[in-house]
């Protein structure tokens, strides 16, 4: 099938996603990833800590672990859809970061992303595909933050690339 042989134009892909996101906005809410990830974190923490999790107020006042939280299933769907796409286009194979420096960058980057999402209450998806198209003031604040962050991150990345 042609679809699984050629790379799709991202403009077409994102235009389709945007139309579907409008339906999501009407049914449950706009596309978001960070909220689902936070709920998964809470559920994992509950599985490990049990009742002791209640001693951390965040998991009672902000995010009470709930497996029926719809945002979780967007992330699981993305994982499934990407797996199917990679399998059918013969692009699925295990790949690992080659150098220790890459592992360190990914570790630090992951921690910053997780911490930043919760501090902001939004992730990059909610920023570009939810808040800003709703013209929420938070979208403009978040965009100014993420552009400044990407710029600083790019400077660090460039420095590392240059050795």
């Amino acid at each position: 099938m042609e679809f699984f042989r050629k790379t799709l134009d991202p403009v077409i892909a994102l235009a389709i996603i945007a139309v579907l996101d409008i339906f999501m906005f009407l049914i449950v809410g706009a596309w978001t990833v960070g909220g689902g990830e936070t709920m998964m974190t809470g559920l994992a923490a509950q599985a490990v800590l049990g009742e002791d999790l209640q001693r951390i107020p965040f998991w009672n006042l902000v995010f009470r672990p709930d497996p029926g939280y719809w945002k979780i299933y967007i992330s699981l769907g993305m994982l499934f859809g990407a797996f199917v796409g990679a399998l059918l286009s013969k692009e699925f194979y295990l790949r690992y970061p080659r150098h220790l420096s890459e592992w360190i960058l990914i570790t630090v980057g992951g921690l910053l992303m997780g911490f930043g999402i919760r501090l902001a209450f939004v992730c990059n998806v909610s920023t570009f595909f939810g808040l800003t198209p709703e013209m929420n003031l938070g979208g403009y604040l978040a965009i100014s933050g993420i552009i400044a962050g990407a710029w600083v991150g790019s400077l660090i990345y460039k420095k590392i690339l240059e050795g």
Partner: protein
Amino acid sequence: MSVVGECLVAFIFGSVVGLLVQRSRFCNTAALRDAILFKTYRNTKALLVAMMILTIGFTTFLTIGDGHPMHFDVGLNQILGLFLFGVGMVLAGACTVSTWVKTGEGNVGALWALLFTFIGMFLFSLLWSYNYWPPAPSAMTGEPNLQALQLGYSNAATLQEKYGIPAIVFGLGQTLVLFVIYRAILRKERGQSSGAASN
């Protein structure tokens, strides 16, 4: 809609998104990083087109009081949080979407990034439980709260309510701004390709 129905809709939506992102190699990180570092705009253009469609779609439905807009107070934490996120996504080479999509392709580095995103969230939950900032949703009033560095809640629907101008009018204004940026990128690309041809 029932909880099961909501989860099913979310899963189907996510699956289509995962498939389309995997086949198009779209990356939100690249949309910002490549524009800053390499002056290439493949992903930036796609992001802008999506934002134009979404702005028209969302503000049209907000005009008639439909849809489920995000509802919480915003403030300094959005700038700080997304600043940290922006640094992190460039260092990790992936954002929230590409970590899931690349993990689905068998990328162990992306899975590692996801794991540490979760750990970062848990660490934040510990800090929040100590300083209680930003305010919990139950403590939000929708009004500015400068002591807590919060500016309240506002979007196209609240603008419509405040000024009596339909939300779609504001939406068209924003779409125009996005289109001007999109056109500037196209011009820049044409300049780059004609410069390369003359070399």
